[in-house]
């Protein structure tokens, strides 16, 4: 186990592990350790906590450059000194538990504000990474607009540490909105219409507890006067809609033995919600649904008293029958036994190219073995 204090030290460590054919795992805030299959015991565990410096903060340019080990909470606090915040939205449960910049990028962490904010992959302006052999490479830069060379920052975003170790990254900032307002609408039927409406929501989340009714919560943000007027227009447009405070579950994942991440064409969101209720009835297992009406949901399967393997398999197979053009369903989080017993990934579009990329970047398979999708 090692805790490098600089990119150079990180590079030395990795180069040495490479020479010795040691596998490497990376530890940031530990908030995604339960996600994806558990890695094998690594030959070297690198704690990124020492690489937590803010390298540059320029409120005038709306950018912040920091070491991968800096926590999202710390960085938001830094941004707040300029009355700004990180532009992408992050899951609150992970942020509260010390999620780091590098970890959030490597796992493509995302919060509910998928409509009003640009996604994380779009706002990581540049990264410095250490490759499997210790080479230090940077891609992108620290300016908002830049198309010089391949966008390796995007390649690293969501790579689960399997292509390189993120040492630092430049992120876009955003003027902190004056206020936020929430409106709850019963059912899931209104969600699509709200997304397409002129109230310009920042987030539209659907939450459905096992056996319960779905509800839609819309978040708008901006100037106080505008938020008041827009929440009012939602309330008056939908029967049963009412203003509410931020729900306790907002930006937090459902707690269940197994979580499936389902991503679906927005047009099919109402069908997905209905389908989950029917599946729950049919197989007799509780299924929690929570996520963005833009089409990305976490499905919490089962309860603490029963083995969720069969239910997980049924849900995956059933959803995948919709076709990969419309929907992708993968296991995000599950007990070790479940990973081996279900097809956790399904058919992944472009997986052949992904394997080739992995082989090119890490020919000896030393970086985070088994942690990536499809066993990459």
């Amino acid at each position: 186990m090692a805790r490098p204090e600089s990119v150079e030290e990180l590079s030395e460590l990795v180069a040495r592990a490479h020479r010795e054919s040691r596998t490497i795992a990376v530890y940031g805030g530990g908030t995604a350790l339960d996600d994806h299959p558990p890695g094998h015991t690594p030959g070297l565990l690198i704690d990124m906590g020492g690489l937590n410096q803010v390298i540059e903060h320029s409120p005038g340019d709306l950018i912040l450059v920091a070491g991968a080990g800096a926590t999202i909470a710390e960085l938001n606090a830094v941004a707040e000194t300029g009355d700004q915040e990180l532009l992408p939205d992050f899951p609150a449960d992970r942020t509260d538990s010390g999620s780091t910049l590098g970890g959030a990028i490597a796992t493509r962490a995302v919060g509910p504000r998928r409509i009003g904010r640009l996604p994380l992959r779009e706002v990581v302006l540049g990264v410095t990474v250490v490759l499997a052999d210790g080479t230090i490479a940077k891609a992108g830069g620290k300016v908002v607009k830049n198309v010089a060379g391949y966008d390796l920052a995007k390649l690293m975003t969501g790579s689960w540490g399997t292509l390189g170790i993120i040492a630092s990254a430049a992120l876009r900032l955003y003027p902190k909105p004056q206020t936020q307002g929430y409106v709850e609408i019963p059912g899931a039927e209104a969600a699509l219409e709200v997304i397409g409406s002129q109230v310009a929501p920042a987030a539209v989340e659907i939450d459905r507890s096992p056996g319960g009714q779905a509800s839609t919560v819309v978040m708008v943000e901006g100037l106080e006067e505008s938020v008041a007027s827009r929440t009012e227009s939602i309330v008056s447009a939908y029967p049963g809609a009412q203003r509410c405070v931020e729900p306790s579950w907002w930006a937090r994942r459902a707690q269940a033995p197994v979580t499936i991440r389902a991503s679906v064409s927005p047009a099919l969101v109402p069908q997905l919600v209905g389908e989950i209720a029917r599946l729950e009835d049919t197989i007799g297992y509780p299924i929690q649904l929570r996520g963005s009406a833009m089409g990305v949901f976490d499905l919490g399967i089962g309860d603490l008293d029963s083995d969720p393997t069969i239910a997980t398999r049924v849900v995956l197979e059933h959803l995948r029958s919709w076709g990969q053009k419309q929907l992708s369903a993968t296991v995000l989080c599950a007990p070790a036994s479940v990973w081996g017993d279900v097809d956790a990934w399904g058919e992944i579009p472009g997986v052949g190219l992904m394997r080739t990329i992995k082989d090119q970047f890490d020919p000896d398979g030393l970086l985070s073995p088994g942690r990536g999708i499809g066993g990459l």
Partner: protein
Amino acid sequence: MDMSSIESVLTRIEPHLPPGAIVTDENERKTYECDGLAVHRTVPALVIRVTSTAEVALTVGACHEFDVPFVARGSGTGLSGGAQPHAEGVLIVMSTMRDILDIDPLAQRAIVQPGVINLNLSNEANPGGYYFAPDPSSQSVCSIGGNVAENSGGAHCLKYGFTTNHVTGVTLVTARGDIVEIGGDAPEYPGYDLLGVLCGSEGTLGIVTEVTVRLTRLPEAVETLLIGFESTDAAGEAVSDIISAGIMPAAIEMMDALAIEAAEKAVACNYPEGAGAVLVVELDGPAIDVDLERETVIARAKDHGAGEIRVAVDNVERGLIWKGRKSAFAAVGRISPDYIVQDGVIPRSRLGPVLASISTIAEECGVRVANVFHAGDGNLHPLVLFDGSVEGQTELAETASGRILDLCLSEGGSITGEHGVGSDKAKFMPRMFTNDDLDTMQILRCAFDPNHLSNPGKVFPTPRLCGEPPRRTSGEHPLQAAGKAELF
């Protein structure tokens, strides 16, 4: 030049292509010798006008078999020579694949062939209340396939993101001629972000033959302001103040006096007379937000001595304001026989000092520079004006242009914000990136195109041999010695 490989490709594909798809006539091939960067010209050995994914796969497969380079070309509007043909290669013309296959407002998606003109998609999607957000100045002629290759931006990308943020799926023909489906209608797919690296790869990772794009809701209100300032400094400070007031405009564009003069001569856009700089500020979103933001913008502009402030009252006025800006490149042709369009990026807050340095460079090189920029994101388009018929002027202009890029780099910026590297700027890449950085990018290239057949010679100054063993470092381990690391 050895043409036997080209003959082999031709023999292989000819029986499977419709009449008219194959262009061998030299004069006709010559019409494809350059893209929007006309200084780089190469006549392709063979031109194929394709109409389907299968035809692209067939052609690329034959190129792979006989080791022939190929270059994809959309509308040919690129400004970095990205679609410059290869003299011994095949130019695959995609502009013949221009069907909009589906528009689905409910799903906020459209499926298009790569040759579809950017603006045509928005025009088709408008009646349903949607549009395609990336809007490069060339949007009335450029193709969506080209937008994907270059990761095109445009005036509105500050708020809405670049092309990469609006693509959810593609059909890719790999450099081997295989057809691979990547992504789809869903917003997220598992695994590496292949779409992210394909967007902006400038045709070097294969050819995209179908694109699923995200459509964006037309905003409830749009307000366009034209604001005159005494100087670019004053305008630049106003931009800073607007952004620190917490406003994220859909676009903030700036033009300096010379650019205004050119635009005025070309399209009579009626910009404020005698202004040292103008800002075009566009606000969009819910009507109430736009109303509130407009007042803030006007107040901040006045703080910096704004002269005339014109708010477009209808689409005609808005169109005229934008016409001045969007035709600026072509317009400088009215005031100068020749010009180089530059595309550098700086941290926006450095605008003032950088503009001062640009004018010093212009003086020292004895050329004039007109400035047009996306002021919100620091993307500069200095237009270096010169007369190529005067001996030595071309070299001076190139020197000035290169020095401007060096200036951008010294400010921590980039050599290209949206026009791409292409053949034009490959030589500048080592100034921005180390050898290790460039090598790492080419590791990715090796995964997609190990034989370097897909648009070779672009982006990178020197190709990396694929299959090379990764560089190994050696030496004693200082961390262990320092007690910071422990092996187990």
